[in-house]
């Protein structure tokens, strides 16, 4: 059994902001429809440049759900520039930590956020750096290394 923090459990059992924001300004999808875990993040930016609404849909384990839920909470009220500085480390920290085998679930959150911000700015999709080591999750070795060192 994974040792999940109470906060992870709480977010898993009562996830915030499930769904899709209507008329979203930013949309980020990561993961593969064909074979693995996936996360779709949508957000809306208000007139003051701050994120007013963020929602997620995910196909994934408890930590994927909790990470996505945490991410949406972290996003609301931030400017896009502030949001850009969020990493999976912040997500994990917000949740009181994640088991190291489950770090990729929070990485998925960070990835979706990067894509959603790129989408918001009208930038083309960036190819991830490093080698994709897990096709299912679309996770690269660089991302895993980063996740592990961020959380060491």
């Amino acid at each position, binding site marked *: 059994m994974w040792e999940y923090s109470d906060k992870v459990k709480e977010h898993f*059992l009562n996830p915030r902001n499930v769904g899709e924001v209507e008329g979203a300004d930013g949309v980020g999808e990561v993961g593969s429809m064909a074979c*693995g875990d996936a996360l779709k993040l949508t957000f809306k930016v208000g007139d003051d440049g701050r994120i007013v609404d963020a929602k*997620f*849909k*995910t*196909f994934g384990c408890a930590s994927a*759900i909790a990470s996505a839920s945490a991410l949406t909470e972290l996003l609301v009220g931030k400017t896009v520039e502030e949001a850009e500085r969020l990493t999976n480390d912040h997500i994990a920290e917000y949740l009181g930590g994640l088991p190291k*085998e489950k770090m990729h679930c929070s990485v998925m959150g960070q990835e979706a956020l990067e894509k959603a911000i790129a989408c918001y700015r009208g930038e083309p999709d960036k190819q991830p750096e490093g080698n994709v080591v897990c096709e299912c999750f679309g996770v690269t070795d660089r991302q895993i290394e980063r996740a592990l060192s961020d959380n060491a």
Partner: protein
Amino acid sequence: MKPIYLDNNATTRVAPEVVEEMLPYFSTYYGNPSSMYTFGGNVAKKIKEARAKTADLLGAQPEEIIFTSCGTESDSTAIWAALRANPGKRHVITSNVEHPAVKNLGEYLARNGYRVTFVPVDRQGRLDLDHLYAHLSDDTAVVSLMWANNETGVLFPVEAVAERVHKRGAVFHTDAVQAVGKVPIQMAENKIDMLALSGHKLHAPKGVGALYVRRGTKFAPFLLGGHQENGRRGGTENVAGIIGLGKAAELAAAKMEEENTRVKAMRDKLEQTLLERIPNAMVNGDPADRLPNTSSIAFEFVEGESILLMMDEFGICASSGSACTSGSLEPSHVLRAMDVPFTAAHGSIRFSLSIYNTEAEIDLVIEKLPPIIERLRKMSPFWSEAAGACRTAV
């Protein structure tokens, strides 16, 4: 919270009768069965009794039973014994849906100088017999096939295969860890050379197993040491565990009927009702030839761990993939071997019942699970898109 325990293929509750039988052998009759004096000799007698009871459950002779520490050790012992007894032969046959106890040993052998054939299964988890027989050769030392699959409950026709394998001069071993106590086994009437069982799957404690070795089968010990188990397994006997296994074997023989009637009926009710109430759900594995207690159901577009943890809130215990491979993030190798699509494999849950389950427990699961699946599907990006199309397409 008292658990609603539907994970009996992972492990079982030790029967209270078994605990009672074991208890005196910890602090009161703690002698070493190898000892010269009465205080040890009495323990040896009790082990003899346990050996006879275990043999009885299998329709075997007491001297054909070797006690081990678990199913895994029994499997390793069998396969290594067959290889050591036939040093000239370098080929092994097994299936690609075996428990890690056999699978990982097979992969080890493949890396260490043996040719290993992993026989495939079809979409229902049924063994490709033509493939197996086509690869059986004079070089085949051992064929190891599970009697019943731990994840799907699918039964392999091991008795028929053993006959052909035996004629061909190879040793036939079966991992019967999930079959013993659930399907009738009569070793006196088949040609299986070795058979592995594990105590904790039949209401004996964890940490004790047994290996049946047919009289006359060439044998070499896996665990070298003292003269215990007639020189076939070194190490001081797990006395209490063995006595517990003997008692559990006796109970299993008496409850086999109930397992195949009352337990089966509860399994069927659970399965049928869940399939009725939950769209895009399907059974994994051949329903026609299956253990009476097992049901593996795929709930498409949701993820197994999430289901398990939400069920955990109600004390419902089941498993996604086998307990032995949890802790890994991979979907089960058994479901992959059966070509179950990923969206379904990821959301597969195994329910495995025992005589300790009640109708009321089944009813509770039937009540609690459909809303859980619905809730998780609402979060799933796949579901919203697939819902319309899939509801009819599957």
